């Protein structure tokens, strides 16, 4: 009789559901810092991601060719990937709200990765402003996925405010430090009734696997892939890591013990 988390393993597909929408991949990737669009496209493909996040910025009309440069959307097959506009770079709730509304209109989708940054060096979120912006955008019909701290209380408040998921950071954006506070991520998952997606700070595959082993429903990353020496290979590594971590979580790991427990029988040893 299979019960509990192991039972989920036996479902045909262990999918990620956010706001009623199903994703087969639990890895969400960004579009920033790639060395070139073709590399980005190949990395996205290798990652197996279903959802890709994009930033919203003013069109640079001073560049040669006016506004007619190639657009990011020229490189993303929107029939294959779900676009998730983000409010990266916004330091106030007002800016984030305006950016979200513009992103909705540009992308014809009401999903938004909401970021309200509180500090330039750490890019840690301004959670008070984030909560305000979440409430406003939820009331306007947005599906809000807020980037936030690894603070279970803030995550609970965001969920109560109507966020469709909570996205606690593992470590500062782009830092590659991995999961700085594993126990907090575990607690956030325990308390939350919406998906928990670890967003920011992942550096290498084991970080992503750890996030999933802690019970996260997904992982979002950009720099870990785009900044790797071989982004396409790292994207594949991340795809595998997210799957491995998820399987390990569902498989139910052994408890940690301070001392040894022999794996082989103690009786019948020659010479004893």
């Amino acid at each position, binding site marked *: 009789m299979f019960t509990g988390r192991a039972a989920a393993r036996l479902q045909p597909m262990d999918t990620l559901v956010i706001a009623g929408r199903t994703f087969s991949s639990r890895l969400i990737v960004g*579009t*920033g810092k*790639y060395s070139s669009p073709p590399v980005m496209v190949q990395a996205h493909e290798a990652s197996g991601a279903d959802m890709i996040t*994009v*930033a919203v910025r003013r069109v640079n009309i001073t560049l040669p060719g006016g506004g007619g440069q190639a657009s*990011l*959307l020229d490189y993303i097959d929107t029939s294959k990937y779900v676009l998730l506009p*983000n409010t990266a770079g916004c330091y106030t709730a007002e800016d984030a709200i305006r950016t979200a509304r513009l992103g909705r*209109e540009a992308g014809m989708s009401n999903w938004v990765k909401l970021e309200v940054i509180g500090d330039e060096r750490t890019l840690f979120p301004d959670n008070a402003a984030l909560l305000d912006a979440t409430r406003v955008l939820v009331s306007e019909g947005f599906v809000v996925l807020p980037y936030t701290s690894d603070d279970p209380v803030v995550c609970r408040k965001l969920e109560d405010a109507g966020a469709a998921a909570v996205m606690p950071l593992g470590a500062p954006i782009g830092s590659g430090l991995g999961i700085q506070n594993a126990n907090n991520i575990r607690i956030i998952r325990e308390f939350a009734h919406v998906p928990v997606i670890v967003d920011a700070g992942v550096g290498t595959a084991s970080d992503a696997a750890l996030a999933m082993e802690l019970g996260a429903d997904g992982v979002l990353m950009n720099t870990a892939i785009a900044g790797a020496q071989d982004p396409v290979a790292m994207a594949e590594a991340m795809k595998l890591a997210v799957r491995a971590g998820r399987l390990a979580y569902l498989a139910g790991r052994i408890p940690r013990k301070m001392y040894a427990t022999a794996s082989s029988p103690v009786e019948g040893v020659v010479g004893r």
Partner: protein
Amino acid sequence: MTVQTLLARLEIDPRRVAVEQNLVVLKRAVFDRTEVSEGDQIEIVNFVGGG
């Protein structure tokens, strides 16, 4: 001039952008009917790479 005309002058593809006029986001469908006036604050944004 309309927003549509403005975008054409700037060589911007209307399908790739969102436009805000005086803090109000405009629906793409009304670009050709919305007049731009002197003193208007216009934001024209598109999607770019970012995390």
